């Protein structure tokens, strides 16, 4: 605790208050809180949406690994979303009895609500192909869009990106490619002519694996948080954030790898021995690419280069969920609409009740839950920021003013990224933002 000057029990700050425009938020962070204000409704909203997010996420990570490891270089992967039973039953490395790290309860197989949705969808029981064509399924395209954001953005730190240019990687990939197309003269001939085209595809598949392994961890974390809240053991937003921080540190060292299974044989394109860790190679690039940057959505709008409508520098991109305008006018990055529709199917009842009471009730649930999701992702970002601060800097209750000043500089630098007008940080400070 901080040393007191006059009265016991009263804390006097060791450094003067911040003068940053987001001073209030920074002080909250320094006190161990989150960027999201601590109110019961905020807690209810974010826990509910974590659960609604975790169910499709369970599908995303399984299918991402399925594509990275099995579908691999299939030139016409029309059925890449038709996940095999093996991957649906693939035990989650961090949940269930077989897990090495038994801190989260929850089953290792696919969540029952997910299985039920895959069976019925919004309509009724139909053959899988019909569900797929009618688009009454989990929007896997969202996961692929997240992956593409991570793949495309450069300069986000970590060694993973650079490893993909190395000779070791190229040699591994070469072997896998040749094995995959064994006997296919057309493809092998094309590979001889244009090796880089195939290499680039393998790099993209490595990122599929990266993201799949990342989300494999996040799903049980979110399920656990939802269970704790239902049991009454999670009572405030900072507690939720701390749970995330602890989870991040528990899994920080998880190896990130890319194994491919071709005709029963395992090809290690990125072996575990390369030592890529979950925190630095998956989590941080993910937060940077998906929460902050992503890209302007090119599906509904054309961005005039003459008017410099797209920033010239990738680091300037501000289209992620933290900046997104939830109204569907094509200015968001990864369109939250795909994810929002997924989450709509798995909302817990207390959230549905909440949404019925505000704005247009059931009609605009999508917008309301999109904004809730934005709040929750600010909470996750706060957890990442606190985790980084914990790893690189000093404890929050440090007594050295120099250390506290360093912490503050770190927080202020993070808050600087939210100074631009598109940032939603000021909006989430009030409950009215729905």
């Amino acid at each position, binding site marked *: 605790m901080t040393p007191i000057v006059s009265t016991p029990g009263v804390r006097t700050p060791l450094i003067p208050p911040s003068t940053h425009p987001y001073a209030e938020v920074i002080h909250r962070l320094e006190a161990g809180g989150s960027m999201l204000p601590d109110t019961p409704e905020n807690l209810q909203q974010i826990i509910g949406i974590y659960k609604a997010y975790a169910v499709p996420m369970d599908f995303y990570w399984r299918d991402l690994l399925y594509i990275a490891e099995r579908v691999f270089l299939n*030139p*016409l*992967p*029309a059925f890449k979303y038709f996940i095999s039973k093996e991957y649906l039953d693939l035990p989650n490395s961090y949940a269930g009895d077989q897990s090495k790290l038994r801190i989260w309860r929850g089953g290792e197989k696919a969540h029952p609500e997910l299985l039920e949705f895959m069976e019925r969808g919004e309509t009724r029981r139909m053959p899988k192909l019909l569900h797929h064509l009618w688009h009454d399924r989990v929007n896997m395209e969202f996961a692929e869009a997240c992956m*593409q954001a991570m*793949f*495309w953005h*450069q*300069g986000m730190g970590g060694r993973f990106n650079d490893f993909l240019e190395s000779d070791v990687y190229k040699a591994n990939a070469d072997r896998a490619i040749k094995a995959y197309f064994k006997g296919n003269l057309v493809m092998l001939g094309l590979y001889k*002519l*244009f090796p*880089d*085209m195939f*290499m*680039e*595809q393998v*790099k*993209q598949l490595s990122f599929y694996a990266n993201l799949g392994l990342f989300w494999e961890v996040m799903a049980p974390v979110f399920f656990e948080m939802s269970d704790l809240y239902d049991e009454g053991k999670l009572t405030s937003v900072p507690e939720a954030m701390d749970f995330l921080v602890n989870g991040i540190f528990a899994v920080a060292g998880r190896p990130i790898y890319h194994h491919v299974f071709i005709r029963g044989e395992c090809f290690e394109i990125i072996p575990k021995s390369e030592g890529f860790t979950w925190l630095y190679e998956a989590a941080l690039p993910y937060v940077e690419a998906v929460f902050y940057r992503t*890209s*302007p959505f*090119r599906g509904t709008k*054309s*961005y*005039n*280069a*003459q008017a410099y409508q*797209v920033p*010239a520098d*990738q680091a300037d991109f501000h289209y992620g969920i933290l900046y997104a305008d939830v109204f569907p006018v094509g200015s968001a990055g990864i369109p939250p609409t795909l994810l929002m529709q997924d989450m709509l199917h798995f909302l817990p009842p207390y959230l549905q009740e909440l949404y019925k009471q505000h704005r247009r009730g059931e009609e605009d649930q999508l917008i309301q839950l999109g904004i809730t999701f934005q709040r929750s992702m600010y909470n996750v970002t706060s957890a990442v920021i606190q985790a980084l601060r914990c790893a690189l800097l000093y404890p929050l209750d440090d007594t050295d003013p120099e250390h506290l000043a360093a912490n503050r500089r770190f927080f202020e630098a993070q808050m600087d990224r939210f100074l631009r007008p598109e940032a939603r940080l000021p909006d989430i400070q009030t409950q009215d933002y729905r």
Partner: protein
Amino acid sequence: MLLRLEPLIELSPLVQAVLVAVGGTTAVVASLIALAQVDVKRALSFLVSSWLGLLFVAVGLGGTAVADHLLLVYPLPMALILMSIGTIVISNVTQDLTQLGGLWSRRPLMGLAFLTGAAGLMGLPPFASFAALRELLALTAASGHPWLLGGLVLLTNCLISAGLIRVFGQIWGGRPTPFTQRSAEVLWLMVLPTTVLMGMELHLPQLLVRNGVFSLTPLPGWGPLAWPLLVSTLVGGGFSAAFYLRPHGLARLPQALSGLQEWLAHDMQTERFYHRTVVALVLALARFGAWSDSRLVDGFSGGTGAAAMAGARRLSLTTSGRSQAYALSLVLGVLLMAAWLLASPAPLPLSLLP
């Protein structure tokens, strides 16, 4: 529609001359503007304008068959080009040519698709447009100003070729940029149709020959004036290839010419011109109308209204509020009116009296 109106147009030499002039100017200027564009979609769309300018020239010179052919050979290559560009934009986010580059090794299929489409638009035998352009050239040679119009067609072809190869070079040639550091081939649902269309484009000349549109000797569409056309294509394409396929010092325009590039890139500032003249005129008139309405009309109405109210208020001051006074004035008024009616002779119809 223009083609349908052709018989009508033939009746007026003035209209024909205007068509040729407008079409010719559009063809050359639009292709120049296309060369100055930084946005890939704009670079391609100005080529569309240029091509249609050539079409206008054909109609103006009375060559309906030529115009038909120009229209026939154009959609497929253009669609192919746009599809391949589409896959590039969706994977690499930007439409800015200066932010793209070095994609050949990783996106060769789309590069080939683009080249096929481009060849279909430049005058390159045996591709389809060569025949159409050559026919146009022959038409201009037979017209009243063979050197001017023929030169115009050759120049346009040269510039179109330059523009197309420039786009190809800036996207697929040169060195990778941060935006093109990672560029994997996109969804099969986009690539497959593009390659199918590429196949169709490659077969287009044969299709047209089979249907009797062009003749087959020795290359589909070969004939008089073929050589100048081919040379113009190679010159334009060659220049662009030299500049853009490899990173070249001269690929960035010298400072002095950047003003020209800006001017061309902004469509010769026609939009600003339009804003300053037509739009400004309408808005000024509108503002004058609004001013006159609020000052003059509203002022007059408000003034009369205020005057009426003031008069009413003044009048209300004369009332004493005593009913006796009112009753007295009523009775007096009626008596006076009765007296006047009785006393006055004919002017009023007597029938009004009860």
